């Protein structure tokens, strides 16, 4: 349980940590969109260089990023194999039954893999350096124009913040229930698939009941403190862009311009 890295925040005081969460979200979003336009090795190299620089700036051990990549290893492998087998073109290197492995296929497979890895790295940078509540606040701030057309942005952000807050609690709870049931002889590693699926029931039922109970408790606690929805609320932490954010946006614009320059000049 302790090695699940998705969405984990590690406190620090790096350049990236100090950026406004909105800046980080915008940079991540723009970066991912732009990289989908990458089409040759030069553009991929440039996007990769940008991520590597960002990773360096977060001042975290690379192992943390590696842990973020591990859970999706199989997904990457699966897509890579699909690309390898199903990309038509010439020259054909060899055939496996009805499938043909081609040079464009190999290139495509590599590109898809690089794309996956870069997207994961970039979003890991965001979640690794930004506390969950800041992510929720940033989202609220960025989506606030939608309030005009009646989208309950503040409530959505609150729901997100609560959901994110509950993740570590539920993980903890899960670990405790697992320990209790293991002590009562539960085993995941024996028996066929049906038996294994059944073994999860003693984990899920207590977990759901506990989660519902917590949710009710939280709702009560919020109500007794006078929580109402659909009211204008002030914030304890007010987001404001600093000099460092301007630098980040300048870097982003530079990245995008150079990306398209490389792409047009060396279009392949």
């Amino acid at each position, binding site marked *: 349980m*302790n090695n699940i890295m998705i969405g984990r925040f590690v406190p620090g005081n790096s350049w990236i940590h100090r950026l406004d969460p909105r800046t980080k979200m915008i940079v991540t979003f723009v970066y991912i969109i732009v990289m989908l336009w990458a089409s040759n090795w030069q553009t991929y190299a440039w996007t990769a260089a940008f991520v590597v620089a960002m990773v360096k700036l977060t001042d975290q*051990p690379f192992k943390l990023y590696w842990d973020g990549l591990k859970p999706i290893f199989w997904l990457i492998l699966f897509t890579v194999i699909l690309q390898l087998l199903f990309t038509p073109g010439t020259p054909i290197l060899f055939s496996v039954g009805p499938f043909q492995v081609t040079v464009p296929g190999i290139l495509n497979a590599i590109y898809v893999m690089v794309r996956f890895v870069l997207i994961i790295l970039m979003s890991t940078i965001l979640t690794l350096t930004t506390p969950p509540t800041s992510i929720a606040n940033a989202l609220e701030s960025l989506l606030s124009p939608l309030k005009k057309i009646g989208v309950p942005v503040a409530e959505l952000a609150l729901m997100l913040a609560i959901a994110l807050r509950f993740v570590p609690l539920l993980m903890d709870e899960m670990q405790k229930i697992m*320990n209790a049931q293991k*002590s*009562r*002889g539960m*085993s995941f590693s024996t028996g066929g698939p049906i038996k294994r699926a059944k073994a999860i029931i003693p984990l899920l039922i*207590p977990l759901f009941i*506990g989660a519902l109970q917590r949710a009710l408790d939280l709702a009560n606690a919020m109500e007794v403190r006078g929580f109402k929805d659909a009211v204008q609320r002030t914030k304890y932490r007010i987001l404001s862009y600093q000099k460092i954010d301007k630098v980040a946006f300048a870097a982003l614009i530079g990245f995008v311009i150079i990306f398209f320059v490389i792409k047009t000049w060396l279009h392949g």
Partner: protein
Amino acid sequence: MAIRFEKVNFSYGAGTTLAQSILHDVTLEMPTGQVTAIVGQTGSGKSTLIQHINGLLKPTSGRVTIDNFELTHHTKEKELVKLRKSVGIAFQFPENQLFANTVLEDVMYAPVNFGATKSEAKLAAEHALTRTGVVRELWGKSPFELSGGQMRRVAMAGTLSSDPSVVVMDEPAAGLDPKGQGELLQLVLELKKLGKTIVIISHQMDHVIAVADHVVVMHEGRVVAQESPQILFNRDITWFKTMKLDLPKAGQLAEKLRDEGITLSRRPLTLNELADLINTEVSHE
């Protein structure tokens, strides 16, 4: 079954940059057929310690022997089933482990897992429920319909139903009313009479005195004392302050008397003992 820890170290995420060391060089013995209490402030490593008794955690270095089972860093997951059959652990708020449709089915979970037939398991479950004081009328009900105190008893029965020879309880009385607490301590003494080796974590020193033959004190991941309650609770008061440990009620009262200038020859463990000491040692003027 004797439980012995030899130079046990444990850290979470050993070998990574985020490694967190919890237990340091723990060497201790929990005698067969006796009640061992583990005390210490929150975060002193008590819960981590007991998870080594049935192999939920394995020592990063050192070894734990439970009768003739040897648990080290290299023990395989498969071998642990044997160990877990003979060591029952009831964690804090064990009612959170209930899941089955009926009380009886939930209590049958452990024996079935450890290879008993349905009818054997049913018998064992009925036995355990009777022992923990769950009345027969409740056996067919959903565990979620019960009151908190009843759920606790059902969960305790769920740990006892596989007839473990070692019973470990992590703050079993937490959150119970005084009557429930008393009954729980009674249960501990009954289990001891059956010859079981019992390990109990408690913050309430009066509970420790009521049941324990042997006390292990943990402080910042180390064992700082292991001795009988009589010896432990007569240690110097400053020691208790540094370990952030409470005295039993009688001991606290005796300390207050001393502050008022009334000194007793030893520190009493129970209120009766305190009363006797006052009667014999304090002159009536």
